[in-house]
């Protein structure tokens, strides 16, 4: 297990594992952070992505790490990697078309399209140096970041250091930092080097990555709660060699999947999924971590986008690909099957508050290599008329029942009222299924 920090979520906002420290007054809020954790044999590579929108000058990122990181262990990545990860693993909507009931030979239903929700987020944050009860273990610039690795002996050491360096520290920072200091963890502190940032010509911050070796396989979300107002969302992509990842100190729950839902959801699938997630969070009392995707990185079905290429995986830190015998799989972005590779992607989505998640997230790689995805199904009705043939009549009768069922499912999944769903689905009262007794005597 390793340690680290960073995080967050596309759908909601504000989160992450380290915390941002603002130099100036202002609201210190980071939106939609995501973290990618590559892990194998105690070796960990973490990439952190935040869509921080504030002034580059004022923000710093503070992340507890288990060891002192040398310059070579830190890297600045391509935000496109997160966009790709997000798109590949996002909950998806698939559609099928009902066949013509009048046809004698029924063609197989065809899977047509997949669409995703969520959007990748942009960049990360910054920081500064000096010591006072604090030791500067290392100091260097990587990409647009000035990085300092600190260790502290006292619980308020880092807070003092940050304050002396002109940063406005959230009031409870010291208490939140104390447990990490006691565990002899170091602090990875990064701030934006404006000159370097200017050279990149980018308006956003690129993801910061670091590699280290430690038995700790965890994500220090507690620190991120300091400057959070309300619950935070975090999306964690975990890339492992063999099996999906779950949390060992919280329940890991799979999102509902494979449900048939009304067609109108297509217009706002993102809104739909957001509601489903909200509902699940509520039902689990905001005390569970949700699995949204767990799939072998070599393929997908259906594919929201193609799997990451070997180069992209390597950029994320998947270091074992070169060591693999070629027999285990080929890198074929095969949209509809095949091509397994020794990389399993688990996408976890967690919404947490200080009360509901008293401890940092601790993970384990399980032996479970079964593929899973949060996938919702739209079944388009046949577009013919009821009088086209005798079979069409019973088709439409069944269709009504099915559409009501889909409406019910949608209401259950999202917590929306059934009436509003029926209205939105365009179902009328007479589309409700006939009473069970109607056919008894007629």
């Amino acid at each position: 297990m390793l340690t680290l920090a960073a995080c967050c979520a596309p759908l909601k906002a504000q989160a992450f594992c380290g915390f941002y420290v603002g130099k100036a007054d202002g609201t210190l809020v980071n939106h939609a952070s995501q973290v990618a954790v590559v892990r194998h044999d105690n070796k960990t590579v973490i990439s952190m992505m935040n869509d921080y929108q504030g002034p580059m000058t004022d923000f710093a990122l503070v992340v507890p790490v288990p060891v002192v990181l040398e310059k070579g262990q830190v890297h600045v990545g391509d935000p496109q990697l997160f966009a790709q990860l997000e798109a590949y693993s996002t909950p998806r909507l698939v559609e099928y078309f009902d066949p013509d009931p009048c046809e004698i030979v029924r063609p197989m239903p065809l899977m047509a399209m997949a669409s995703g929700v969520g959007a990748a987020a942009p960049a990360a944050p910054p920081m500064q140096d000096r010591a006072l009860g604090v030791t500067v273990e290392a100091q260097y610039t990587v990409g647009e970041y000035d990085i300092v690795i600190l260790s502290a002996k006292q619980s308020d050491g880092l807070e003092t250091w940050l304050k002396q360096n002109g940063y406005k520290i959230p009031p409870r920072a010291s208490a939140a930092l104390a447990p990490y200091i006691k565990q002899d963890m170091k602090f990875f502190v990064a701030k934006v080097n404006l000159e370097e940032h200017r050279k990149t010509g980018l308006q956003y911050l690129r993801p910061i990555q670091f590699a280290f070796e430690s038995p700790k396989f965890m994500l220090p979300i507690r620190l991120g709660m300091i400057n959070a107002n309300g619950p935070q969302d975090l999306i964690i992509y975990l890339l492992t060699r063999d099996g999906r990842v779950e949390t060992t100190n919280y329940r890991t729950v799979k999102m509902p999947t494979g449900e048939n839902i009304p067609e109108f959801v297509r217009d706002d699938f993102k809104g739909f999924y957001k509601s489903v997630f909200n509902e699940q969070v509520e039902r689990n009392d905001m005390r569970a971590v949700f699995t949204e995707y767990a799939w072998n990185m070599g393929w997908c079905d259906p594919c929201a986008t193609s799997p990451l290429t070997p180069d992209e995986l390597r950029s994320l830190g998947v270091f074992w690909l070169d060591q693999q015998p070629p027999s285990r799989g080929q890198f074929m972005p095969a949209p509809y099957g095949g091509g397994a590779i020794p990389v399993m992607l688990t996408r976890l989505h967690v919404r947490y508050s200080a009360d509901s998640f008293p401890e940092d997230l601790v993970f384990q790689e399980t032996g479970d290599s079964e593929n899973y995805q949060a996938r919702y199904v739209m079944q388009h009705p046949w577009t013919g008329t009821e009088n086209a043939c005798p079979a069409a009549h019973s088709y439409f009768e069944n269709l009504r029942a099915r559409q009501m069922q889909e409406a019910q499912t949608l209401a259950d999944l999202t917590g929306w009222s059934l009436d509003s769903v029926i209205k939105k689905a365009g179902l009328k009262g007479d589309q409700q299924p006939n009473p069970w007794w109607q056919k008894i005597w007629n």
Partner: protein
Amino acid sequence: MDDSAALAPRFRFRFSGLFADARMFQILALGVLFAAGVWLRDFSLRPAQIVLTFAAALVTQRLTWRFYPPKARSYRSAIITALSLTLLLRADDLLIHPIAAAAAIGSKSLIRFRGKHLFNPAAFGVIFALIALPHTWVSAGQWGQDVALAGWLVALGALVTERARRGDISWSFLVFYLGATALRVAWLGQRFAVWEHQLSNGALLLFAFFMISDPMTGPNHRWGRLAQSALVAAIAYWWQFHFYSTNGLIWALVVAAPMVPVWDLVWRAPKFEWNEGENHGPDRLEASAHPADRNGADARGVLRAA
């Protein structure tokens, strides 16, 4: 996880028949936990895995019949082991659970020292699967706070009701382990909620009440049990907070098992025998004169002292 202990005469008098055997309480308690897990939680367990676990455990138990004296032949321990394995072990292959169950039950006959089997069968089955079989894991976090809380109540209730004489090891283990984790939380300056959260670990619950308290594999003398519980708690703590490894409790129980014969040498006391309540009938009071019950009296002393 065969657990629990010799029953005192008074107690046996009260709970005659089936429930004179402490294992029935365990089967009941584990059954309730299992049902709660299956109905209220996604336990990632396939029905076929459950069936195969029980089948393998019972068949293996039957195959090893000849190692047991006729009076000691019972499927109860096998049922407890099967329940424990289905509660703890996860695998994405159908063959894993039956193999682990067979190994667990088989270990009772094969790995013995001075007339006692060395390893708690369920703990052995889990560790055997984790080491030797692919695609296996233990989902310690899958219980959730509410179910874990209910589980604690059930387990504590069962322990108190049954007044298991060798339940003293459960208590002392909890004191050592929870004491150590509480001290750690205090030292780190964390909130009490963290400690509370650590209690909601289903594996801890199963462990404390159904594994470490297994009288067949625990030390015979109460001082031995005290020493063993401290050792197991220390290893588990180290495993989890020093090495940051998972499943510390189960590993600790297995790793510390070889010390049990040592404690038995240092502090001598009669070996435990299960009391098959329904077999004793009116003889049960006489049966209490069995050496095992003298041992039970030891434990009672500890409980009182506590």
